């Protein structure tokens, strides 16, 4: 069985954040919930300034601290490498959020239906959207997936529940890469089977030096970066997007 992973080429990333928007539309995440996040960094002092960008999805760690602390088994590893969240089972204890060193877990403090950017209850819209909130609601999210047949796509968007990047499991099962990868305008994001030495991702890792974020803490992330270095304590984040955690 394929065991998925992502390779992100920092030499290519132009920091456009289209992946963030593609993720939000595909997965119908509510306002301020950013499963995919693109850091914009600045290093050095004028005029020796370096500006660079780093996308940060969930790392889908093999030794995932979030899975270990989940008291109800809502967070689990799938055989294909995905670190999944069963949003029907999540009790919203937020242990995963505390345990995760990458900050990829987003808690729904509000009823997401009331947190979708605009008032979609508009009467002139109802005839077009059937009252769906958001109006671009993706029907694939409300299904059970995988061997376990658990509800792990889309995050459920339920008040009091944690959600995070799913590697777009609903797309993987259709044979499509995650939305962020499919949309990247400069093909900086790559996705595939890390166990297959001939996959696109394996070949990239054979060709170029890579790193993983916080490799030293032993989480064994399934997201690799090529073409750059990890941010240092000197790296300054610019143009941050406000997330709700």
């Amino acid at each position, binding site marked *: 069985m394929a065991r998925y992973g992502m390779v992100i080429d920092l030499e290519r990333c132009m920091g456009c954040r289209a992946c963030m928007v593609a993720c939000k539309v595909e997965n119908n995440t509510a306002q301020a919930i950013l499963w995919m996040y693109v850091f914009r960094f600045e290093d050095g002092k004028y005029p020796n300034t370096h500006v660079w960008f780093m996308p940060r999805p969930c790392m889908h760690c093999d030794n995932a601290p979030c899975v270990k602390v989940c008291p109800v*088994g809502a967070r689990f590893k799938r055989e294909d490498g995905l670190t999944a969240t069963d949003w029907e089972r999540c009790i919203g204890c937020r242990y995963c959020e505390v345990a995760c060193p990458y900050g990829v877990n987003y808690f729904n403090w509000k009823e997401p239906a009331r947190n979708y950017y605009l008032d979609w209850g508009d009467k002139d819209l109802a005839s077009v959207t059937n009252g769906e909130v958001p109006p671009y609601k993706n029907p694939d999210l409300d299904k059970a997936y995988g061997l376990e047949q658990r509800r792990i796509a889309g995050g459920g968007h339920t008040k009091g529940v944690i959600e995070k990047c799913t590697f777009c499991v609903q797309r993987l099962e259709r044979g499509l890469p995650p939305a962020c990868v499919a949309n990247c305008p400069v093909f900086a994001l790559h996705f595939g089977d890390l166990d297959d030495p001939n996959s696109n991702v394996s070949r990239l890792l054979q060709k170029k030096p890579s790193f993983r974020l916080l490799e030293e803490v032993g989480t064994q992330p399934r997201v690799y970066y090529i073409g750059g270095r990890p941010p240092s304590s000197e790296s300054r984040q610019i143009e941050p997007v406000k997330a709700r955690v």
Partner: protein
Amino acid sequence: MELTRRDFLKGSAAVGGTLVAGRCLVDELETLAAAPGGAAAAVAEEWVPSTCWIGKQDCGLLARRVNGRVVKLEGHPAHPRNRGTLCPKGVGQIMAIYDPNRVKTPLIRTNEKGVPGQFRPATWDEALTLVAEKLKEVRAKDPKQVLWQKGRSKQEAIYDKAFVGAIGAVAVGHGSYCSDAGYRAAEYTIGPHANANPDFRYCRYMLSWGWNITNSGGNKFCWLTWNQQLVAAKERGLKVVVIDPYLRGAGPFADEWLPIKPGTDLALALALCHVLVKEGFVDRPYLQKYTNAPFLVQADGTFLRVADKEQVWDEATNSAQPFDAQGVKPALEGEYTVQDKKVKPAFQLFKEHLTKYTPEWAADICGIPAETIQRVARELGQNAMIGSTIVVDGMTLPYRPVGVMSYHVSQQELGFQFYRAMYTVMMLVGAVEAVGGLRIDSTWKVHANFEAFEKIKIKDPPYDYTLGASKFFPIRTSNPGMIAKVMLNPQKYQVEKIPEMAIIHMANPLASFTDQPTFMEAYKKFKFVVVLDPWLSRTADLFADVVLPVATLEKYEGPIGASDMYTDATVFRLPVMDPLYQSRGELDIYLDLCEKAGLLYGKNGFLDRLNTELGLKDANALDITKKPTVREVMDRAARAAGQAEGIAYFEKNGVWVKGPVSAKKYYGYAASPPFNGIRHRLYGEALLRYQREQQAKGADKIYWQDYTPLPTWRPPTMWSSPAEYDLTLISYKKIEFKQSRASQVPLLAELAPEQRLAINPAAARARGIQEGDEVWVESHNAVTGETRKIKVKVELTEAIRPDVVGLPHHYGEVARHPWTKGQGPTPNTLFFTGEGYVTNTGDNTFHVRVRVYKA
């Protein structure tokens, strides 16, 4: 008591060991419960091809539609410009379609103008009848008193030409706020209607000149196509030199950053020319054959002509000969005597002109070390590989793999002459339209302006309100800001008639054009204003008598060229769903409006003009006595464009990929004869003539000073602002937004929620300013002494010069929208239009001296 999931956990913890068993039980139950909800419900899913609406590139997209509802927009994989991807705007515009804050019905104003509007909803019939009556009324006096103001160039054939032609209005675009000084310079200097861009497939060394590589938001393919070509070229080894006061998104791709002082690009270009000439990086055969560099210039600055023909000094016969004489060997240097007159080749004059423009001289002006200028010029010269050739498509062509990418850098007072100088850099090394060199974004074609700009007859007053062929701007772009100035003071510009009615087509002059106070006053002069827009723009809010709601992605437009410069394709914009609310596509609106105004049918009516402009002939021609549906017009347009299946082909496939563009079409060198037989103008003789005529007609120096035959440096007018205005404000575009079409789209506004002033930490420290502080930015007009200020929060960045501050456009443009509330002001309030703040072609600058202090 209601138990939350968290309480359940606490409860479970209390009973300790039973948790595991409990979980197993729940697990099983949940699995059972999950299954039926799964794939059961039947959904009707389809993928509808269309073309992106929000941006400039017209990328191909596929709309995923579920039960008639669009749930996602993805890039069309076959579209050459975006290859299956979209920029953030392309993806996020899905929310713009559904936005309940769009203008839902036609609106008619019920209160006075100049203040936030009160409107009553109207039917299309009532609104269009009213507009048609006003149109008839003004047209009866003079159709030219109808000003048609467009925001962006989409569907020029249908709107700008056929519709505007039918109503006889004066059409004005937004180009003077964009890159038009650069276009004018290209048309005059090298021929095509173009701006410089590199030949990414072959380029090895690129000057990214005021073009922010991946964030620039201006020229044709700047958001995806060139970005894709850039990363591919970088991986091949392209070296990128970024010339920009603010590094921004160019960061990861910049091999070298030259943080230049704003407004000094001309000085840098001249210094590069100085080094290239001095060190012999000169493509002599190109200059001799394809430019006017060898033309002999007399002491008065005009060309020596015999029987109307420019002369060169022939080194074979040691005599003056017509430039096109057989076997002539034209000298580029020296001084000669012909008919007792001392003459010099234009290139010799240029060399002399360059003497003082040393790297050391430019270093102070530009704020870039002389060694750096020297080295970059040398690298440019070396990488140009002058003399080399390459075989492309079976043709042996000059290979000059050095390019320039630039666009909005023309938005400076010396923009026209800077562009001339930049083209001259490329001309010296022979890279204009050579393989790997300076390219244009379409196929090579000499624009009519190449000749027209040589023969302008400057008129005597009265002038028309666009100041065409006036003594102020002999070569001119219609600048809406200058029109506003003229409307407020027609005597000053010797204009008799000013416009009475405005049709604002997807534009927002009251926010997205500079010099807001001038527009506020000028728009009060319009007797009637119609705005076509999906949202209540600031312009509509303050000045529209009638607002007509326009569809976004739910309409037909086309045909649209979809070439990425190397592969040719044609697309249409197709409705991804029915227009939301009561909105309609522009063509739909114009058909009805023309019908009501009596301008639809018959010879020279809108239908007749659609036939002409869309090339609808014979079987494809529209019956000019019968109103067609929009789809029918599109179907005929598709057939006329060569697609035998008509619009149905596009409805099925989205993109009609026609295959590779032949190199013969896009390298000017490959044309027969090369460059279609024109000579590039190193020396601008006509510019000198205009200067003299302007002087003779009594124009002030500020209008004629930059009409010089060779690009000549002078300090920008803004530098004479008092010393306390110690910073230069620049503006820029963010990749998240497209002009006034996007900052109200919540998915995009979330990424960049509010206006921020970019300032260097050192500059901030010196003013006691910290990250996030509110400050006043106060601009000063060096000519009139006016000052203007806005309050804005700051953002510290080490990527900007300490003597420069930057503000993005996009904000403050849509009125009464929940997401634009509190976004902060547009920088356009701070920029000026008019003398000192426009180029010699009337194009606007986005540079001004400011001071910044804590609010």
